[in-house]
C-alpha cells in the first residue's frame, strides 16, 4: 500500500499537481478542474493500473484513491 501511495504521489507530481501531498489530502483540495481530474485519472490508469469508475468517484482522499488502484 505504501508503494502504491508513493507511486500515486509521483504520478500526481508528473501531472503538475503542486503543494504538500499527504495520504489524507482530499482530491478536491488538489485544485483540479474536471478536465484535469480526468487527465490525472488517465495517467493513473496508464502509469499504475486499473481503477474502476465507481471507485474513482467514491475516493475522497489520495489514500482512498491509491487503495482502489489494482496494481
Amino acid at each position, binding site marked *: 500500500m505504501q508503494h502504491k501511495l508513493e507511486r500515486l504521489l509521483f504520478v500526481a507530481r508528473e501531472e503538475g499537481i503542486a503543494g504538500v501531498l499527504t495520504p489524507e489530502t482530499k*482530491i478536491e483540495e488538489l485544485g483540479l478542474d474536471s478536465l484535469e481530474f480526468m*487527465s490525472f485519472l488517465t495517467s493513473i490508469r496508464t502509469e499504475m493500473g486499473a481503477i474502476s469508475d465507481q471507485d474513482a468517484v467514491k475516493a475522497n482522499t489520495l489514500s482512498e484513491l491509491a487503495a482502489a488502484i489494482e496494481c
Partner: protein
Amino acid sequence: MSVSFQRETWRDFYPDAQQIFPIHFRELSLHQDEIPAGCDSEIYETLEDKGFLLVITARDGRKLVGYYVGMVFDHHPHNKDAGRVSTTDMFYMLPEYRTGNGAKLLISAEIHLRKFGVRKAAISTKLKQDHRKLFEALGWEATDIVFHKLL
C-alpha cells in the same frame, strides 16, 4: 468539503434543487428575457412514475451542490430494436464545487445509465460554456450541433 454522488428520486431532489435552479438558469440558460424559468415538477414526477427519469445528485453533506437529470426511453422510434436510449435534461455543478466533481458527477450518471440498461446516451454542451473536452475525455463523441430559433 467532501462530495458524494448518489441516485435520488425527483421528489427528494426537487425541494433542494429549487435553491440552485435560479443560479443554473442565470449562468447557462439562453434567451432568458423571452423564455423565463419555471420548472413544472409534475411532469418530472409523471416521468419518474413511468420509470423514465434518472436523477443523480452531488451533495456536500446534506447540501445539494450539483445534479444530473436524464430521461430514459425504451428505444428511439427510429431504432425500435436497438435498446434503451437517454437524453440529458440537466447537468450542473455549483461553481465553487468545480474541482473535479463535474467529471465525477458525469461518471456517476454513466454508471447509473448502464444499470438502467441504456445503450446509447446523449448530452449536449453550450457553445458559450463548452464542455466538449471534458465529455471527450470521458469517452463521449461529438456528433451534432443544435440550432435554436425563437418564433
